[in-house]
């Protein structure tokens, strides 16, 4: 009887173990290993923790049900990202997406760690300034989904344009332009005042931003 060291086993081998040998423990290792990443992605796509938890659950149920369909040509994480994007899309359609309300942030802050150095759990930097995380998250939530998805995959999950194209099924050129447009929208909402141009057009010095 094989007794593999599952914790050291690759994702793809775990999927194989699960698919071929119905190795339940392999699925659970995959779940433990990837749940944080899936949750994090779902949270920024959907805007609130409850929906993120539901989407995460749906993703791993899909992993279970579709493990046999996983084509080992691409990485498991690519597949996982795609399942997550799709689950969030489906969930977003079912529910009105509720961006993180400002009032709820106090509880949130304990559960999210400051990414940038020098910030404590509440997102305050050394000078006590409250992080503009809320503003940024609200801006992100206000973007159209087709821009938010590639931006989150790029800036929060470090996927390449190529990987984003694989995950979302849209051409690289479209990935590029949606990210660019989304960033410009976001910059507007964040109150940046420099001039910006419309996608595809070189900006001229006399163009002004639309009001946010």
């Amino acid at each position, binding site marked *: *009887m*094989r*007794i593999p*060291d*599952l*914790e*050291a086993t690759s994702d793809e081998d775990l999927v194989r173990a*699960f698919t*071929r*040998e*119905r190795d*339940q*423990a392999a*699925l*659970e290792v995959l*779940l*433990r290993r990837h*749940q*944080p990443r899936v*949750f994090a992605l779902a949270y*920024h796509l959907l805007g609130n*923790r409850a929906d*993120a*938890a539901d989407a*995460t*659950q749906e993703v791993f*149920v899909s992993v*279970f*049900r*579709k493990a*046999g*369909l996983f084509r080992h040509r691409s990485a498991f994480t690519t597949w996982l990202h795609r399942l997550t994007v799709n689950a969030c899309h489906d969930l977003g359609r079912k529910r009105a997406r509720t961006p993180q309300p400002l009032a709820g942030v106090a509880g*949130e802050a304990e559960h*999210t*760690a400051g*990414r940038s150095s020098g910030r404590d759990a509440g*997102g305050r930097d050394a000078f006590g300034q409250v992080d*503009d*995380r809320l503003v*940024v998250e609200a801006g992100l939530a206000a973007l159209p989904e087709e821009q938010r998805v590639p931006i989150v995959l*790029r800036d*929060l999950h470090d996927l*390449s344009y190529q990987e984003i194209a694989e995950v979302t099924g849209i051409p690289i050129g479209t990935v*590029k*332009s949606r990210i*660019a*447009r989304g*960033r*410009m929208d*976001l*910059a507007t909402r964040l109150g*940046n005042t*420099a*001039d*910006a141009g*419309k*996608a595809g057009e*070189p*900006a*001229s010095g006399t163009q002004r931003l639309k009001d946010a």
Partner: protein
Amino acid sequence: MHETIETLSAYVDNEVSAAERARVEAHLAACIDCASRKALLERASASIGTLPPAEPTPDEARRIQEGVLEQTGRRPSRRIGWSGLRGGLRPVWAGAGALALVIVAVVAGSALFRNRTHSDTTAAKAGSPGAGAALAFDSPRDVRSFVAADAGVKHALEAAESAEPEGGPGSAGAGEAPAQGRSEPATSLPQAPGAGTAPLRFGAKAPVTAPDAASAPAPPTTLQAPADSSRNDLRAAAPERSEAECLAERQEGRSDIRPADARPATYSGKPAWLLVYAVPAPAPGAPGQVAVYVVSRADCAVLTYQVFEAP
């Protein structure tokens, strides 16, 4: 001629060719408008990038996990102490000295019980041993509790650990039994399974639905939408796999590995074999370990397994 925001944004992401990069950099050095647009794009990218990661709380994570396992007809399993196996087990499996491994297999009790005598008769039933597949487990904890406490298992493990490499404890000729010829394993097993013949009930849950196979994953419950299974086949009526078959399959044909103990049982209501193996200590003086497998009688799939230090 200015750069488009797509190009500037791709440049910020380092997703441009070397030629494009050179061109953009040269342009940015000379064009304030483009430089400020690039700064905007960078700032937006950085604002997103420095958002704190949203991690599930332990509570959220647990609920998600439970939700997944419920929806897929499973319960959480607990695996214990894999790291301790790494050094000790592989050589055993790979090498020739694997007979030291005794697996308490909850495999078909019929042949086993027939030849056992009982030295512990706490609640032993008279009558045909193995009748009614006494052991019913509902969780890995049940399995572990049973294995850790059952006198018969304990005897089996002790005997296995001191066994000759070539044979089961107290057995005559068990080591020579052919690989597939496990239908009469009784002679290789230690005596006295103890209370093994008495029905032992763990957990109060009613059995889950009978196994009915789905596509790749193990048999789902009725909760699973049939549409998801591209390869449904009705296994409920299939004959059960014998201990011999399951051991051959799970042990990949090796005959030098033997369970220390093997019993029929149910796991979450599914007919199963409980197999207990003694794992040699990874190093002299280190504690030995016990590997316990519960395999489905329907298809020999591993329903749960655990490894822990020998009690």
